[in-house]
């Protein structure tokens, strides 16, 4: 692996601007709104933020994983399914992660990919 095609100054520029931009996004409403209340329908919308953002972010990573060059991989699909199933069934994040990890690492081992 070689060095990136950016100068040291450019790399730090990326890091600092990304940090400032990310902080601005995180602080945005907490900074501006203070103790004012939000309209009820907006609050109802916001209740669905995590289930609206994360599944859409994950879906392409599951269907077209980078590790297999973007080709659908039965093993990673199975690991994702196991994680979701155990997560829904047990309502426990850690059991869900363990289920996914066991299927993935176990499967990689059984197919001689470890």
């Amino acid at each position, binding site marked *: 692996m070689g060095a990136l095609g950016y100068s040291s100054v450019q790399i730090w*520029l990326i890091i600092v601007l990304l940090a400032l931009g990310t902080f601005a996004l995180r602080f945005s409403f*907490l900074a501006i709104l203070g103790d004012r209340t939000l309209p009820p329908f907006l609050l109802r919308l916001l*209740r669905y933020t995590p*289930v*609206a953002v*994360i599944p859409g972010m994950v879906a392409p990573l599951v269907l077209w994983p980078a590790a297999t060059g973007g080709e659908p991989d039965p093993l990673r699909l199975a690991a994702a399914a196991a994680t979701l199933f155990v997560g*829904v069934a047990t309502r426990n994040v850690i059991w869900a992660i363990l289920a996914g990890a066991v299927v993935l690492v176990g499967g990689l081992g059984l197919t001689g990919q470890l």
Partner: protein
Amino acid sequence: MTQITPTKAFLQGLRRSLPFILVVVPFATLFGVVATEAGLNLIQTMGFTALVIAGAAQFASLQMMQDQAPILMVLLAGLAVNMRMAMYSASLVPYLGKAPLWQRAFAAYILFDQSYAVSLDRFEKEPELSIPARIAFFFGVAIPISILWCGTTAVGALVGSAIPSSMGLDFALPITFIALIGPMLKSIPHVAAAVVSVVGALALGWMPSGVGLLVAASLAMLTGALVEDWSSKWVH
């Protein structure tokens, strides 16, 4: 019901953060390994991870850097992935909006998926929780995870290529996120929102990086809120 003290709330948050050790350690290690292999030095890798503290965005912008993308595109990729943070920020306002500005600013700095999901769940279940207790609980969850995040990134950067990449570490991110979502699928509106999010993001994958996800997420939030409206009318 008696109010719990901020100290107790902080310790409760600390306990709730413990399971995430299993998540953060591989994920942060992976970032350290990938960033060093891509050519960032130790100080740059640590600056990246400590200033940004947003795993998915760090990976997204690092990916763009490896593709030699223009600086503007590198920034846009990272910030698009982080757009959800603005939604998190807004949804915490009813619970943390009355806290002192410096506490809100510090909470914003360490506001990420895990600290948000765990805290919002607690705040919704216990509306009687005082504001100092809420802030203390949030810090109890977020501070240990942040320290661990930076520490294990350093380990990853130092051991670098000694970790075999065949261990399936590439899939740590999707598994983490799916595990976070599974327990949240507790009602029909939540499931409806998740389905719209997935279908929308896949259907809009042709849009520039991050834009399709934003559109899909907005539609999914609207779906959740509307289905909740309808289902509450059915019940009554």
